[in-house]
Every structure is written in structure tokens, then in C-alpha cells.
């Protein structure tokens, strides 16, 4: 892969964003931008057009599902795949309704290690 993969992280945990950015960028395979609120994340998604968005489910200003719904409605962000990374272990919290709104989504429960995270991202992007 010649071009690096652009990843947008939307998560209110600053330290999480910091370490994920550090870990993903170490090999030069990923280009990472971070947003610590839902609103800012939507702005960045529009302006930066990332290849994939890592989205937290529970944030102070918006729920991850709400962010996903907004992105889905906008033509230029609708097709960006979303990977939820959530500390809520229950699959119910992501539920069927969200799936309808956001289309195909992927879930990775926290805590997750860097290796697994990279594998999952690559898997999602490899799909047609």
C-alpha cells in the first residue's frame, strides 16, 4: 500500500486518542487524526474525508450512534466505514435500530490491544 490509511478517532477519552494515534502511526501505515467530541468529529470527517472512523459509543455531547446517523445523511461521508470501539460490553447497546440507521457497522469491545485493532481495521477496509 503506497498511500497511508487515514483514520479518524472520535472519542472523549483524550489519553485513549493519544495512545492510539501514537501506536497506529509508528509504522507509517496510518495517518491518524483525533476528535474528542462528536460535533468536532463530524466536522473533521467532512473536511478530512478519512478512510475509516473509529467511534466511541458513549460521549458527553452525542452518542456514537447519533454521530453515525449524521454522517450517514451527508453524501460525502455516507460511505466511510465506521468501527465502534466501546466499553459497553453488551451487544444490545448497539442494537438493531442503530444498524438500520448507520448501515453496516463493526464493533470492537474495549479493552483492545493495538495488534487486534490494526487487524480489524485492515479487515474492514479489505472488504469490497
Amino acid at each position: 500500500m503506497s498511500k497511508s490509511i487515514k483514520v479518524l478517532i472520535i472519542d472523549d477519552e483524550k489519553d485513549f486518542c493519544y495512545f492510539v494515534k501514537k501506536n497506529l502511526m509508528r509504522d507509517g501505515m496510518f495517518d491518524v487524526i483525533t476528535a474528542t467530541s462528536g460535533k468536532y468529529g463530524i466536522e473533521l470527517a467532512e473536511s478530512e474525508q478519512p478512510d475509516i472512523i473509529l467511534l466511541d459509543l458513549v460521549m458527553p455531547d452525542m452518542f456514537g450512534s447519533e454521530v453515525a446517523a449524521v454522517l450517514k445523511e451527508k453524501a460525502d461521508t455516507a460511505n466511510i466505514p465506521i468501527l465502534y470501539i466501546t466499553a459497553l460490553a453488551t451487544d444490545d447497546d448497539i442494537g438493531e435500530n442503530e444498524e438500520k440507521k448507520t448501515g453496516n457497522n463493526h464493533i470492537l469491545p474495549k479493552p483492545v490491544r493495538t495488534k487486534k485493532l490494526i487487524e480489524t481495521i485492515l479487515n474492514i477496509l479489505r472488504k469490497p
Partner: protein
Amino acid sequence: MTPPFSRKKSIFFIRMVVIITTAYFILFTPAVNKQLENWGYLFIVFYMLTNLLVARIPEKFFYDDKIFYGFLLSDSILLPAGIYFSGYVGSDLYLIYFLIVSLITISSRFKYLMINAIIFSCIYGWMLYQKGFLTGPLAVSYSIRIPFILATTMFYGYLITTRLKGKDRKIREVQEQYEQIVQATDVLMCIVNHDGNFLFANQKLVTFYGYLNKKNLLGSNFSGIYNGDKAEAEKALSYVKSVFQKNDMVQHESFNKHHDIWFSNTLSPIRDPSTGEVSAVCIISKDITNRIKEEKKLIDTVELLRKTRDQLIQKDKMAALGRMASGIAHEIRNPLEIIYMGVDYLEYNLPDDNPHIRKSIEKIFNAVNRTNNIIKNILSFSRQSEYKITQIPLISLLSNTLALANHTIRKNGVSVYREYDDEFLEIAGDRNMLEQVFLNLVNNAIDAMKDCKKKKLTVRAYKKLVTKIGYKSGYRRADFFSIGDEMIVVEISDTGKGIPEKAMPKIFEPFFTTKPTNEGTGLGLSLSHMIMDRLSGTIDVESRENQGTTFFIKLQPASRMPDLKKA
């Protein structure tokens, strides 16, 4: 009961008249025959002595007509005898006259009394005629005695027919009334003596115990009515004896096995009127089977309500804990994630050649993993993870579970017994969840037998019809099993140390454990309980300390859900 002027008292009254009359003649009348006077004193003394004897005769004997009239007669004779002994009259005819009057009164009926009077009057008249008393100067004074006989007799006849006979009739009437009451009541009634022999029984009792008539029953004792059941007869007799001892009423309830009837028994003392001691016992037995049955129903219902309430509280607790667990999980997993990512970063950037650093990083990961596992366990409560109810062959599921536990089973030297009624039992459930439940129970069983000599694990599986109302089985819509339904039961039973009775109500509570702190999380059984609830099944336990514990897992048979896919 005793009339104001009893028969006994009337006898004493007559005797008093005899003594006073005799004494009067001795003291105040000049005697014709002085030699006889001393005999008069002796007569009074002797007569008074007999009074002492008469006083000892119980009152009831005087109601025997023969005895009463016997006294009446003998005392009537003794009256003229007393006068004769006082030496007032020299003539033997005088004595004979009173003897005749007395003899006449033997009869207890007015008609016979009059016939007697006429016959004896004729005899007496003939005697007077023979002695020549009916002629001469004293003819009038002698002949007037004959109408006097008749008059006395008539007066006496009037007395017995109106007074005494009336009294007897009244007694008879009262007796009849009592008899009617006793026979008409709805209770079994009898009178028994000290040895439990029947002295009286009402018809109801006679027919209840299958006797043809009262005569067959009377004289027999308790062992007769209890079909030779010695223990029952002894028990009944002991109550009778306690009445004799306490001289007071005794009440108790008893169950008649042969008739399937409950009785409420009242044993009352019947006292001897003269001594006040208990002479017999009256037993009144009332059928209270219906009441007892209703009571039992009520107790059962209360018990069921209590159980349901406990379970509701338990459910509430679980739900609250689930909510809390999910909150905790979220709060803890976020920092855990940062630790993971941070350590990943450190691991990558630190020099590779220092084995201590590598080891330290590994230790940090281990600690995070452990924390995460605890969170995972707690989360099992709030997790609504996807489960699929499918048709599962039960025996293969049980075999799988035992295979998973095989290592622990062998390590602990436990012998496993499988008792399956049917090799083809099919249940409706989720394979993974049930495996978790069974494995948890098997592991618990092995743990419970660790320090026991006998280590026997029995796994049973059988079909059963629901017959009893219990937790989640009954008639309500919300019940998992209805009466008459088929269910499949799995029993997992050990010969371990058992569950202490105090711990029983708590074993399905989360975090409750009897195991040492580092061995159990206290989540296994509560999780199993929750899983069974979700699978429309139940889990129960029976345990005896130092003997073992059996868990009953009741499952839905696959036949109840025909649309199920085969797993």
C-alpha cells in the same frame, strides 16, 4: 339433677318419724307392758345405727324402685314395731294391723294397691271376728280399723301415683330428651370407663365404626374401633387416662387413617355426684376434615406467596446489580483500554534487550487481563447476549459437559454415574448457556466433595409430568410449566458436604459463596439461575449437610416447540 326432696331424704324422714314416735311412747305414755320398754331403747339404738349404714348407700341406688320400696316397706313395718316394743300396746293384733298396712304398700301401682287393701281388710276382719272383737263393747273401736286400712291405702296410693310416679315419669321424659339430643347431633359421642371400655355410644358412632348395633360395641374397647391398631388405641386411651388424672376436660385433634378423617375430640369427665371423682369420660368427636383441608390449602398458598415474593425480591436485586455492573464495566474498561494502548506504546519504544522490562510489561498485561475477566464475569448479569433456542439432544449435551470436566473429575478421584431414562430426550434451549449451567453445577459438586471420603457424582435425566404447583409451575400465564405438562428434568447430585441450611436462601444470590475467597466468585449459581429463567426453565436444590446436594434443572421438552431448528 337431684330433686330438692330426694328419695334418700324421704327414707330418712320416715326413719326419723319412727324414732320420734317410739321415743314419744317410751317417755310420755304409761306402758302396758313394762318388760318390753327396755327392748324399746335397744330398738332405737339399733335403728339409729342402721341409719349410718343407709347414709353410706349412694343416692342413685334409691332410684332403683325395688330398693326404694324395700326401704319404704321395712321402715313402715318398723314404725308399729317400735310402738309395740315401747310396751304401749299389749295386743298382738295391733302389730298385725300395721303389718297389713305395710304389706299393702308393697305394690307400686294404684290398682294392685286397692286389691291388696280389700283382701287384707277381709283377712283382718275375719281375724277380729274369730277373736270375738266384732261383738261386745269394743266392737265399734275395732271395726273402725277396717275402713281406716282402706283410707290409709288410698292416701298412700295417691302419694305414689301423683308424686313419686310423676317424678319417675319426669325423669324418664328428661332421659328421653337427652337421648334424642345425643342421637340427633352430628358428632360421635360415647362414654368410656378408665380402661377405654364403651359404656355408651350414640348411633352415629356405632355406624361410623361399622358395628351392627350398640350391643356389639358396648363392652369392647378402643382397639376394636381402631381395627387392632395398637398404637392408635394406646394413644386414645392415654387421653382418657389424662382426664381421670387431671379431673378436667381434655381437647385434642386426631387423624383416623382408616377413614381419612380428622376429628376434634373433647373429653369431659363424668363425676360421681357423691365423691366428685371421675367415674367415666364422655368423648365427643367432631369431623373437622374440611376445616383441616382448608387450613392446609391456606398454608400452602401462604408458602407459595412467600416463595414468589422472595423470588421477586431476588429478581429485583439481580436487575439492579445488572444495571450497576454495566455501569461499572463501562467506567473500568475505558481506563483499562488506555493502559493497554499505553503499554503497547511503551513496549514498542523501549529497548528490546532488557528482559526485566519485557517481564514487567507482561505482568502489567496480566493484571489488566485479570481485571477485564472479573468485569466480564460481572457483566454476564447485564448481558443480553444473543442466544438461540434450538432443539438439543440432551444426552449428548450432558456427555459434552462431563467431557469438559473430565480432567477435574479424574484429578479429584470422583466416580461418575449416569442414569438416563431415555437416550433420545430432546430439549429446547441454548447449547452454550446450558453447557455453562451444567459445567458450573458439575464443578460445584466436585468442589463440595473435595474433603469427603465418598465421591460419587450422579447425573440423571428423565421425563416427568408436572403435578405440583411450584416455582414457575402452576396455572398462571407467566408460569413456564402448566400442571399436566411434560418437562425434562436433569438431576446433578453429589455426596459432598451439603449446603448449610442458613446458606440455602442465599445460594442463588450474586457474590454469595461458601468457597474460600480466592476460589469462587459467587457468580456461578446466580448466573445459572438467570440463564434458566431466560430459557423458560427452573433450577431447584435439595441439600442435606454432610450427605450431599442435588440440583434439579427443569427444562422445556423440544416437543413443546415443534418449529425449532435442530442444532
